[in-house]
């Protein structure tokens, strides 16, 4: 890791090392060759774009997820962590996790959902700092909107 300027020390709640790492070198930023569903998310206000591909296991759980995105460090890292947190989950569990994540992104915590959604919520926790930056919350949630749209059989995320 390069030396970090102390100039931005008070931003480390937003740009934690995990975010910077996943933002710079995402592990899952690739399209799937074979997939069962895909959807796009678009934030025309800021130009962020994401597409998510999903492949299901025979039992209907998510076997593999991949994404392509153009956006800020927060949105890339969020997409990357999302892929890791939804592996093996069925659609309803993903929706529940997204609801919890969205609450955490907006308020910083999700006290009533954490016991249920551990350990996935733990993995997403580095993104909780976004709640102090209201204009950046949508950066973190855009990949989730695209994923849920794909699970719903939609081609485009409808919200945001």
């Amino acid at each position, binding site marked *: 890791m390069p030396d970090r*300027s102390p100039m931005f020390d008070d*931003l480390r709640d937003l740009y934690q090392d995990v975010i910077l790492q996943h933002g710079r070198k995402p592990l899952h930023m690739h399209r799937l060759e074979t997939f069962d569903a895909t959807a796009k998310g678009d934030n025309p206000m800021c130009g962020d774009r994401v597409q998510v591909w999903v492949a299901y296991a025979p039992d209907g759980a998510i076997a593999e997820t991949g994404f392509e995105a*153009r956006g*800020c*460090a927060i949105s890339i890292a969020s997409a990357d962590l999302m892929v890791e947190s939804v592996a093996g989950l069925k659609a309803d569990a993903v929706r529940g996790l997204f609801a919890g994540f969205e609450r955490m992104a907006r308020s910083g915590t999700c006290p009533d959902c954490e016991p249920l959604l551990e350990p996935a919520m733990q993995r997403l926790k580095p993104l909780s700092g976004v709640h102090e930056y209201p204009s950046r919350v949508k950066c973190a949630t855009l990949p989730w909107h695209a994923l849920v749209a794909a699970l719903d059989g939609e081609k485009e995320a409808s919200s945001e």
Partner: protein
Amino acid sequence: MNVTTRPVLDVSAVRAQFPILTQTVRGKPLVFLDSAASAQKPRAVISAMVNAMETQYANVHRGLHWMSERTTEAYEAARDAVQGLLNAADRSEIVFTNSSTGSINLLAHSYGRGILKPGQAVLISGMEHHSNIVPWQMARDAHGIELRVANITDAGELDIADFEAKLADGKVGLVAMTHMSNVLGTYTPAERIVKIAHAHGARVMLDGSQAVVHRRVDVQALDCDFYVFTGHKLYGPNGIGVLYGKRELLEAMPPFLGGGDMISSVTYERSTWAEVPHKFEAGTPAIIEGIGLKAAIDWVQAIGFDSIAAHEARLTVHALARLSAIEGVRVIGHAQDRGGVVSFTLDQAHAHDIATLLDRQGIAVRAGQHCAEPLMRRLGLDSTARASFGIYTTSEEIDVLADTLVRVREFFA
């Protein structure tokens, strides 16, 4: 304080007139580099608006009492101020709207419906703000006219050859083009555009939202048919905009919004319209904002566009030199004739991340698509960061921006 007699702009004297510039943001002095989105307001503007509300406010154009007469005088004096600012031939050529967007929509509805014929075309450029794209799409869909786009070059200038080619078949009834790009800082060659368009039988509207802040605009010298701008970028209030139009064109155009103030007489069978400009000014206007706009114009003119343009040209040269020297920074747009709006990208960081980090140092820039999605697509970009300068911007602020950008890049390296 008198800044009018100084050949070189006394920036600290100017800054002293902007109360907001003494604010700190996140513990740092405010470095406001987002004037192209909306400019800050000098005390002269704030005081004029407060003073009007405290001492002489009533509705305009209808009262027979002292307050209404005084307010009408003050509001109509704003029309004279705009006439002077643009050097319009007649005060009746100045129509007040709520914004540049409002002005362009007025023109698109009225000129599109009443003057342009199905099969005729409107020609815009490849570097327009959404506000000079979408109203013409709506007019196209409503009135069967065609929308054409003149290309820009890789340097971010109007491609004059393509512009002429798009006019060649004589179908273009109106050219609607920015006078200065809000993304690239490019000044379009307005005089040349007008000459070429007129030679092909097309009228010309110039969107002066950015340009009117930085340069003296003379609509008679330009010979443009319409010119629009907004108050809030010119150190005035928001909620008031201007549509200048040559009188005979405005007279031929049907009204846009209907209501009070725009009529001559009303019966249930039919209504007749007031003379221009009132035909286009339905309802109670933005009275206080008009008074504020006059104060802004008076204030800017007292400083003088020669000083303003020279100051901002120095800032722009300095900013381009400083930003271009930073490893990984790419300045977007290299027009020969350009002003103090500088878009850039940074190889290690997305524009939003740049903006968030700069904000932590009290530096306000804009990041994103700048309401110009087709232009961003033409440039092959998703977003840029944009620093824009005003009359109160200093070289030291640009240095703070450049020094901080170096640290931003390190942060994301």
